[in-house]
């Protein structure tokens, strides 16, 4: 309506988006997660009564995406369904385990899995961030438009090194086996190296970097690495320009977070 007169415009989806006539907001958590973790088969769906769909601070409830696969911004593709849920072995550091050669995760504190996060859009406890950090980082960077690091307020008592009056942390806190922030930074660094090596068609280096990434628990590397493995399998004697390009594209996709 414009000054009380009906204005009719017929637009394609792209033009409607450009004109701001589509619902606001970017992809939901569930949509983004579906690109990393595809839905589990019905008999594997975790039930979690009482957990609502995730929302932001204004409490919008975001529906779980009915489909996996690429989102509007492209990027991270799916990993096999058998790696999403209920496969982590006990005693693995920060829930990082292996299934079918690909890392999977389960929170060591609340036992939440990435599959449950995808379904509800909500994490189980603060420790989930540490357990799922490698998987969450690309999601966070994409949702927050590249803002991958906190640059806001820090609790004053942390700056001053003062303990709180009341602490709700467990009295005997298990010491982290790894420095998770350093781990996340190392994974990002190695992803860059992997992309550069693939661009240079240096598959020997790429395979080494990929193995290191997989060892550190990087899901994307595990997936992208299968492409490198394909290149590895046919040796280094050229004639595979097309496949090499494909690998390079795959790596670039993985970086496009």
């Amino acid at each position, binding site marked *: 309506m414009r000054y009380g007169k009906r204005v009719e415009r017929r637009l394609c989806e792209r033009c409607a988006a450009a004109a701001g006539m589509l619902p606001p*907001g970017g992809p939901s958590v569930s949509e983004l997660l579906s690109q990393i973790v595809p839905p589990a088969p019905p008999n594997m769906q975790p039930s979690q009564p009482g957990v609502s769909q995730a929302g932001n601070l*204004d409490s919008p409830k975001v529906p779980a995406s009915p489909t996996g696969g690429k989102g509007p911004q492209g990027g991270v593709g799916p990993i096999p369904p058998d790696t999403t849920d209920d496969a982590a072995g006990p005693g693995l550091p920060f829930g990082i385990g292996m299934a079918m050669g690909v890392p999977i995760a389960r929170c060591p504190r609340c036992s939440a899995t990435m599959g449950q996060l995808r379904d509800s859009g909500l994490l189980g406890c603060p420790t989930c961030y540490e357990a799922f950090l490698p998987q969450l980082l690309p999601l966070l960077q994409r949702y927050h438009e590249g803002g991958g690091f906190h640059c*806001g307020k820090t609790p004053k008592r942390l700056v001053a090194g003062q303990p709180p009056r009341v602490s709700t942390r467990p009295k005997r806190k298990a010491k982290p086996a790894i420095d998770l922030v350093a781990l996340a930074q190392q994974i990002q660094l190695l992803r860059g190296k992997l992309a550069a090596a693939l661009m240079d068609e240096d598959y020997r280096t790429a395979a080494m970097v990929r193995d290191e990434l997989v060892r550190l628990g990087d899901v994307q590397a595990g997936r992208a690495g299968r492409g490198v493995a394909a290149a590895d399998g046919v040796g280094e004697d050229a004639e595979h320009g097309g496949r090499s390009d494909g690998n390079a594209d795959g790596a670039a996709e993985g970086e496009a977070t």
Partner: protein
Amino acid sequence: MTCPLPPESIERGADWLRRGPDGDVVISSRVRLARNLAGMSFPGRMNGGESTRLMRVTQSAVSCLQLKALKSDAVTGSIEGLTPGLTPEKMVWTSIGEMAVLDRALLVERHLISKEHAKSDRARAACFTLPDERLSIMVNEEDHLRLQCVTPGLSLSAAWEMLDDVDDQIEAQLDMAFLPQLGYLTACPTNVGCAARMSVMLHLPAIRLAGEIEHVKRAAKDMNLTVRGFYGEGSEAAGDLFQISNQTTLGRSEQQLCEQIESRVVPQVVAFERKVREELVSTKRRYLEDQIFRALGSMKFARQLTPEEATASLSLVRLGVHCGMITGIEPQAVTQLILLTQPAHLQRLLGREMDQQRRREARADLVRQRLEKAGG
């Protein structure tokens, strides 16, 4: 059955309904922070023991709060002194489960709690509210704590300043879940980081009449901001009331978000709304008068009103008051009437529960009575 809002406050209206800076267009400014306690599951996975502990430590921390009045500066100068004796006071604790359904709806209409919190069946869902309603804390919503400060008009930095102080005091008491790289950890990853939602509620009837609201939404989206309705996501822009708020929380500080919304984005939207109002008055006066006086006429003579109809028409009446076409009523009284005609407000104001038909009749009676002296 307890309600944190005393009967007199229902008539008085929420504190944020008073006129603040740029009050012709900006209704209120709000900052909301999500906080979770370290070493404890998020509410969706909490057990009974954790819920009890959360409630106990939160009550203890909130009871120690020392609330300051807003500082007297250029921004808040028009706010101070209008509600003497209301600040600072102790916050009132209320259990959601012990409240009547109508009182829960009242708090939702008042923007003190979310719709989801009102419907929560969690045993320890609760809220703390300050009597002047500027400050409220939801306990056991999607996150352990959601702190909120609402101030009148365009005064986002004043709201942030107050809430930051409250947050500091609570953090000194409680151990919050925080990682240096990711900031404050929240149940939903879309809120992680500064975990702050800063929003400004605007009345944009002229932009809507001119068919330009989609342009505002698109411009906001380009700046990682969202435009929502009066009651947040999913609510249509009832009464031409729109909330502009930040979409992302990681990678930008609270001050950056505050500065972007308060100093760069909202002033442009305010200027645009004023410009369109002026254009309407000067070039389409007859059309504008028709819209405004049709709305006033229906409000003054209707015998049954739905809340949607009342809100939409009162929005045009408010525009008419600001454009000088309607006299005999203050613009803030019209804004207050929009709130008072909401279902829960209406029933609590009249002191009885009513079915839908009775509410429509009572709403029309109330609006007629309040607009008795309004005219062109």
